[in-house]
């Protein structure tokens, strides 16, 4: 029960912090000197992207802990899927908000910049991870196989990133760095950005905890069903003659079962 209370407190805190970020971002902070009002996306886009990477980091660590025999426990597999699912939501939002920002800033919805491309591949990789988990398998098999998939994705991401950087060296530098070094970033803007990072991290924490609990309860429900099986399996082998007779009676299925000759007559 106490974890539930803690989770609720975290959830409420996250909600309040997000509301504060929105109010600060939209109304309190001044427009940026270069990008104008557009810069207000700074308070949501980078924090969300950070949460996406954080989520995949947690998934990778949890998967490694699950694969390593001494630490293998159901909770690591449950944490891996919880964090990955939340990560996919945040990655999707990273791509969407990035695109919305890119359209007025660069004039295009999409650019083949290294960070964008890597994020897009990350998104598809983890969609595949979640799809792999949906294949019907025993719990242990699924845990092991999806942990392998998560770690392979983790190994692949730096290679993808490096190759895309090489491939498209022309891209604008890190958003935060650009704005930061231009020293036009207002004090209150920096504070709001920090608030955004904290707010979305707390939201991630709440969502992952909740998703973890959902996974846990789904497994408990499966276990609960195991005890019901004993009763059900004991009934196997009974031949229910009465029920068969009932099913063979005419007219019970609502269709006319009379013989064709009868109809002709």
């Amino acid at each position, binding site marked *: 029960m106490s974890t539930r209370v803690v989770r609720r407190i975290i959830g409420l805190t996250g909600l309040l912090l997000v509301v504060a970020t929105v109010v600060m971002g939209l109304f309190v902070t001044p427009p940026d000197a270069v990008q104008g009002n557009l810069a207000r996306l700074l308070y949501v886009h980078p924090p969300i992207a950070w949460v996406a990477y954080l989520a995949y980091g947690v998934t990778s660590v949890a998967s490694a802990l699950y694969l390593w025999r001494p630490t293998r426990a159901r909770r690591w597999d449950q944490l891996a899927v919880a964090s990955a699912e939340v990560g996919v939501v945040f990655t999707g939002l990273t791509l969407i908000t990035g695109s919305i920002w890119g359209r007025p800033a660069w004039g295009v919805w999409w650019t083949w910049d290294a960070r964008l491309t890597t994020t897009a591949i990350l998104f598809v990789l983890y969609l595949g991870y979640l799809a792999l988990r949906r294949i*019907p398998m025993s719990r242990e098999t699924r845990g092991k196989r999806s942990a392998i998939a998560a770690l392979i994705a983790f190994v692949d991401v730096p290679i993808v990133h490096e190759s895309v950087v090489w491939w498209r060296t022309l891209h604008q530098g890190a958003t935060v760095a650009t704005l930061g070094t231009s020293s036009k970033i207002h004090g209150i803007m920096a504070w709001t950005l920090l608030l955004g990072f904290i707010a979305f991290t707390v939201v991630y924490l709440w969502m992952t905890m909740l998703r973890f609990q959902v996974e846990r309860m789904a497994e408990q429900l499966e276990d609960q069903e*195991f005890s019901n*099986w*004993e009763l059900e*399996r004991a009934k*196997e*082998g*009974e*031949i229910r003659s009465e029920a068969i007779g009932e099913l063979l009676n005419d007219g019970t299925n609502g269709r006319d079962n009379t013989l064709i000759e009868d109809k002709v007559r």
Partner: protein
Amino acid sequence: MDLGGESDAIRFESVSVLLGGFPALLNASLRVSHGELIYLRGPNGAGKTTLLRTLAGLTKVSRGHAWVSGLALPGAERALRDVVGLVGSKSHLYEDLTVHENLEFVRSILGLSHDRTAASQEVFGLAGRLQRQRVSSLSAGQKKRVALCALLMKNPRIWLLDEPHSSLDQQGRRLLDDILVQATSRGAVAVVASHESHMAGDVGARVLELVAGKVVDAERRPYLPPFNTASATESPGGAVS
């Protein structure tokens, strides 16, 4: 490891095997000594195939403990596979290869002699022109013979057969029975899932019945369809042990 578990050829202590949440075996307990020939029967879905696959180390024990040939389950599945042989409902053969190529593959993996392959093929009548036939063109019974031939080549300590009689002809069944009797007389264990358990008496087999995922001694619970007492004649060999 339990000492009692090591002295038996097979020992299950309330073993449950979950297949996607469904307990195909449910608290099954079982003891088999060395040199025993077991006929396993039971209604559809009772868990016969799962029991055999568990014995072969292909399916993991979810709850409970088991020892097969002194190896503890869950845990020693990999080691177990070296000492067991299984012919299941699936043939484990490559359809695009010929009979001989399939057996040759088995031979090369197990590191056996060419003579052994040839002799086994001879036993199952797979030596002549048939050996150049692709498996895809064989009948179900012939495929079973090829699978059994591979099993004979391996000569495992524990023979696991899932419905081996179903597609074999009379000669094939006698051949198989002969092999099993000889193997068990040399100390091997054979577990045969079969509906033909009335034949068990001929080969001196003990009959075990699997009902709803549990092992029941045939002596204690005769296999009778509830309302068709006339078919009681179907299982005269049930009490042989």
